[in-house]
C-alpha cells in the first residue's frame, strides 16, 4: 500500500486514499493511487474543494474545483481541476449580462477550458467559493457563508457552446452536480465510498466518451482563452514568454485526457504526450481568430494526436531513453525557436520511424500561423491589448537586433522575439524542411537558438517535455517580472527616467502603500488604466520612514509608453478617484525628479584649507577611511552636536508625520466604504 506520509517535502501529506484506478491497458497498465484529500503547505485540501491555481501570466490566479486527486507511479502528484471563469474572462459572451463583483462561472459542457490536469504543486491556496444557486439540490448558504465567501457562483458557462447557463447541468465533466454544490457540513462517511464507484465509472468512461467528440465544439471556448492570454501578453514583454506556460497550465485540459481514454488508455508517457498534443492545439488556437480555420486546424490536430498515440507507445518500448533524449533536445529547440519546429519534428520522425504526414500538417499550421499573425491580434473588447502588441513588436525588433549577437542569458530576454522575425523564419524554415527534412539539424539548431524563443510558440513541443514543463509550473518563484528586471538592467533606471522626463512620460504616483513593490504598482496601473508602464517604488529612507509609518506615503515613478498615456493617467487621477486598498486615493502628477549632482555640497564635513594643502600627496590620494571619534577631541564634541541635531530632526519628522497621520485618519474615518 501507499504510505500516507511518503511525500518528500514536509509541507505535504496525503490524506485518505480513495481506491486505485487504472490508467492504460494491457501490459502497460498502470495503477495510480487516488486520494480524497491531502495536506499541502499546511492547508488541508479535499475533493471538490475550490482552489487558486497558480498561473504565471495573469496577476490573478485561476480558480478551480479539485475533482480528482492522484499520484502516479512515478510519484508525480496530479490534480484534475474543473475551472471557474471570472466574468472578465468571458466578458465577450456575457455581453450586457450583469455580474456580481465576486461572481464566478462554473465551466460546464464539453470542450477545452472545462477541466485540466495539473501538477498538484500548482495549487496556490484555498479559495472559498459559495454556490448561491437556488437549485433544490444545493444546500443553501447561510448569511455567514456569504459574508466570508471569496467568490460566489450560481451560473455556469458552457465551454462548448459558449453560452451562459442559468441552471446547473446534471453532470459536469462527468461529475454529478450535487457534488459541485455547497458541501454538506460534515460529509457523511457513507457518501464517500459511493463517490468512489462514481468515480471509477465516470472518470474512466463517461468522461472519455464525452470528450472524444470534442473537436468541433472546442473552438469558441478556445477563443476566449486565447483572448485572455492575449490580453495578458500585452502586459509586459516578457510575459509573452509566460504565455506558453499559461497555456500549459490552463490548457492542459480535458482534451489532453480524452484521446487517452478514447483509445482505452496507455502508458504514462502517452498521457503526457497527449497533454502536450492538446497544448499544441491550444496554442495554435491561441493564435486563431477565425472559427472555420479553427475547425480546420483542429481536425488536423486530432489526426495528429491519434497518429502519435499509436506511434508513441511503440517507440517508448523500443528505446525509451533514446527518445526522451531526443525529445528533451527537441523541446529545447522548439521552445527556443519555433522556426525550428519542422526540423525538430523531422528529427523525431526519424527516431520513431514515422511518416512524413506530420511535417505536412506542421507546414500547414505554420501557414496558418503566418496568416494569423498578419491579422490584428484580437477582438474589439481587448482594444488596448490589441494596440500594445503592435508597439511591442516594433520595440522588440529593435531589441532583438541588439540581443541577437548571442549570449544565452540574453536569449531569455529575447523571448520577446519579434513576431515579424519569427514569421519570416517560420516560412523559411518550413520550406527548408519540406525540401530536405533531415538535413544538418545540429548546426541549424545552434545558430538559431541564439535567436531566443518565440512568443506564443505555435504547435510547440511534442512529447515528453512534460517533466520540464512540470518543473516550470512548479517553479513558481520565477515570475515574469524577474526576467523583466534582469532584462532592463542594461538600461539604468536613471537614464530611462531622464529620457522619460524629456518625453513627458514620467508620472509620479503618490499615496501608495509603501509596502508595495514596483511590480505591484505596475499591476495596479495596468488594471486601473489598461496602460502598461515601468514603475519603480521610491525607496524609503529614514526621512521618509519614521518609526510611525502612518504618515508615510509610498511613492513611485512610472514611465509610460507615450506622452498621451502619461497625460491621460494624470488627468484621470486628478479628476477621478482611484481608491486603493489602503484606503487612500492614488495621486498622480507629472514627475520631476532631481538627479544627484556631480559635486553637491554636504554640510558637516569640515576641512581646514591650509591643512589640505600641506597634506602629503599620498595621503590625499589614499582612500579616506573611517574612524570612531575619541571622547577627548574637539571632533568628538562637534560630533555630539551633530548627533543632537540628528535627534532633533528625527523628533520633528516624527511629530510632523504624527500630525499628518492624525489628519489622514480623521478623513479616512469619514469614508463610507472600507
Amino acid at each position, binding site marked *: 500500500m501507499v504510505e500516507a506520509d511518503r511525500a518528500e*517535502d514536509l509541507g505535504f501529506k496525503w490524506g485518505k486514499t480513495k481506491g486505485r484506478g487504472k490508467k492504460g491497458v494491457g501490459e502497460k497498465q498502470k495503477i495510480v493511487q487516488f486520494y480524497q484529500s491531502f495536506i499541502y503547505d499546511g492547508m488541508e485540501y479535499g475533493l471538490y474543494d475550490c482552489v*487558486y491555481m*497558480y498561473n504565471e501570466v495573469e496577476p*490573478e*490566479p485561476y480558480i478551480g474545483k479539485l475533482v480528482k486527486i492522484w499520484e502516479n507511479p512515478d510519484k508525480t502528484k496530479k490534480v484534475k481541476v474543473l475551472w471557474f471563469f471570472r466574468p472578465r474572462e468571458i466578458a465577450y459572451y456575457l455581453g450586457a449580462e450583469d455580474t456580481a*463583483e465576486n461572481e464566478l462561472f462554473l465551466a460546464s459542457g464539453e470542450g477545452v477550458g472545462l477541466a485540466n490536469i495539473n501538477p498538484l504543486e500548482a495549487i*496556490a*491556496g484555498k479559495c472559498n467559493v459559495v454556490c448561491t444557486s437556488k437549485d433544490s439540490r444545493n444546500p443553501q448558504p447561510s448569511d455567514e457563508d456569504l459574508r466570508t465567501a471569496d467568490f460566489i457562483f450560481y451560473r455556469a458557462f458552457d465551454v462548448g457552446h459558449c453560452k451562459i447557463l442559468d441552471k446547473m447541468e446534471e453532470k459536469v465533466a462527468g461529475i454529478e452536480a450535487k457534488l459541485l454544490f455547497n458541501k454538506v457540513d460534515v460529509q457523511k462517511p457513507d457518501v464517500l465510498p459511493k463517490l468512489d464507484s462514481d468515480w471509477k465509472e465516470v472518470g474512466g468512461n463517461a468522461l472519455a466518451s464525452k470528450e472524444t467528440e470534442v473537436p468541433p465544439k472546442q473552438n469558441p471556448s478556445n477563443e476566449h482563452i486565447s483572448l485572455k492570454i492575449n490580453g495578458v501578453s500585452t502586459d509586459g514583454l516578457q510575459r509573452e514568454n509566460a504565455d506558453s506556460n499559461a497555456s500549459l497550465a490552463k490548457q492542459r485540459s480535458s482534451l489532453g485526457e480524452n484521446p487517452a481514454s478514447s483509445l482505452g488508455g496507455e502508458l504514462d508517457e502517452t498521457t503526457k504526450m497527449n497533454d502536450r498534443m492538446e497544448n499544441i492545439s491550444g496554442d495554435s488556437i491561441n493564435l486563431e481568430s477565425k472559427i472555420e480555420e479553427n475547425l480546420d486546424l483542429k481536425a488536423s490536430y486530432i489526426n495528429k494526436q491519434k497518429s502519435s498515440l499509436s506511434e508513441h507507445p511503440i517507440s517508448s518500448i523500443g528505446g525509451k531513453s533514446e527518445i526522451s533524449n531526443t525529445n528533451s533536445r527537441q523541446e529545447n529547440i522548439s521552445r527556443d525557436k519555433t522556426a525550428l519546429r519542422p526540423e525538430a519534428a523531422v528529427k523525431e520522425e526519424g527516431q520513431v520511424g514515422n511518416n512524413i504526414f506530420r511535417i505536412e500538417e506542421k507546414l500547414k499550421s505554420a501557414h496558418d500561423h503566418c496568416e494569423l499573425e498578419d491579422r490584428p491580434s484580437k477582438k474589439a473588447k481587448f482594444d488596448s491589448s490589441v494596440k500594445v502588441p503592435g508597439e511591442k513588436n516594433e520595440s522588440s525588433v529593435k531589441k532583438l537586433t541588439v540581443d541577437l549577437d548571442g549570449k544565452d542569458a540574453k536569449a531569455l530576454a529575447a523571448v520577446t522575439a519579434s513576431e515579424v522575425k519569427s514569421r519570416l523564419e517560420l516560412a523559411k524554415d518550413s520550406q527548408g524542411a519540406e525540401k530536405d527534412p533531415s538535413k544538418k539539424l545540429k548546426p541549424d539548431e545552434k545558430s538559431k537558438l541564439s535567436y531566443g524563443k518565440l512568443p506564443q510558440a505555435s504547435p510547440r513541443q511534442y512529447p515528453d517535455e512534460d517533466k520540464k514543463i512540470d518543473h516550470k509550473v512548479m517553479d*513558481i*518563484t520565477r515570475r515574469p517580472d524577474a526576467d523583466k528586471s534582469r532584462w532592463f538592467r542594461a538600461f539604468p533606471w536613471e537614464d530611462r*527616467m531622464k529620457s522619460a522626463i524629456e518625453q513627458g512620460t514620467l508620472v509620479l504616483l503618490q499615496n501608495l502603500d*509603501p509596502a*508595495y513593490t514596483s511590480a*505591484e504598482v505596475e499591476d495596479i496601473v495596468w*488594471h*486601473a488604466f489598461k496602460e502598461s508602464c515601468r514603475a519603480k517604488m521610491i525607496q*524609503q*529612507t*529614514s*526621512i*521618509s*520612514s519614521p518609526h510611525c509609518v502612518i504618515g508615510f506615503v*509610498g511613492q513611485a*515613478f512610472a514611465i509610460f509608453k507615450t506622452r498621451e498615456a502619461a497625460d491621460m493617467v494624470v488627468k484621470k487621477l486628478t479628476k*477621478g*478617484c*482611484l*481608491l*486603493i*486598498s489602503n484606503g487612500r486615493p492614488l495621486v498622480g502628477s507629472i514627475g520631476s*525628479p*532631481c*538627479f*544627484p*549632482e556631480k559635486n*553637491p*555640497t*554636504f*554640510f*558637516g*564635513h*569640515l576641512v*581646514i584649507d591650509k591643512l589640505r594643502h600641506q597634506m602629503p600627496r599620498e595621503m590625499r590620494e589614499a*582612500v*579616506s*577611511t*573611517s574612524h*570612531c571619534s575619541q571622547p577627548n577631541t*574637539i571632533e568628538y564634541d562637534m*560630533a555630539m*552636536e551633530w*548627533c543632537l*541635531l540628528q535627534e532633533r*530632526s528625527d523628533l*520633528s*519628522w516624527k511629530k510632523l508625520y504624527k500630525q499628518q497621520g492624525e489628519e489622514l485618519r480623521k*478623513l*479616512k474615518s469619514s*469614508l*463610507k466604504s472600507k
Partner: protein
Amino acid sequence: MIFFLFYMGSSAAQADYAAFLEKVKRTIYLDHLSPQVTEPVVRTALNQFGAVKNVQFIPNYMGPRNIAECALVEMENVRQAKAVLSEICQFPFMISGMPRPVRARPAQVEMFDERPIKPGRRIQCRWLEENDPDFEVARKMKRLTNKHAAEAAFLQKQQLQEEEKLAKQQLDTLKGNYKKYEMVDSIMADGTARRLARHYNLRVAED
C-alpha cells in the same frame, strides 16, 4: 469598478520572501553619508566589523540635491550587522570626513529596491463614482496628500538650513581654534615667546 490583485502564497514564493526577510535582517541602513562616499569607502569602513557582502546606495530623486546620502549595507550575517549597529551607535563614526558622524539603523523592507512581492497580499482598487459619498472625501485626501508632501518638503528644507547653520558655526569655531594654535605655534617659532619671557623674567622650558 473594483478589481483585485492577488498574489498567491505558493510555497516557493514564500520561501523566496523568507529569504528576502533574512537579507533585510542582516542589512543595515546608513545615512548622513557624504555624497562623496563611494562603495569601496563604505566597504572598507565596515569591513573592520565583519564581512560586507553588498553595498547599495539609495538614490534620492525627491529631496533637495544636497541632502545626505544613504545606503544599504548587507553584512554576512545577522550577528555582524548587529555588531556594526552597536558600534556605530556607541561612538560617533566618521566616514571620509568629520565631524558629522554617520548613523546606522536596521534596514526595513521598504528601503529595498528589488524586493519580492509579499506572498498572499491582496490589493484592491476601485474607481469611485462621482456621486459616491466617498468621492469628496477622496478628493480631500488627495489635497491633503499634496499638502503633506509640501509640509515634508518644507521641513526638509528647514533641516537642511539647520545643518548648514551648524556646519558654519562649527567651521567658525574650528577656524578660531586653528588660528589660536597657529598663533601659539608662530610665536614659539619666531622666538617671540622667548623674547617676551626674557622681558618678563619668566622661565620657559625649552622643548
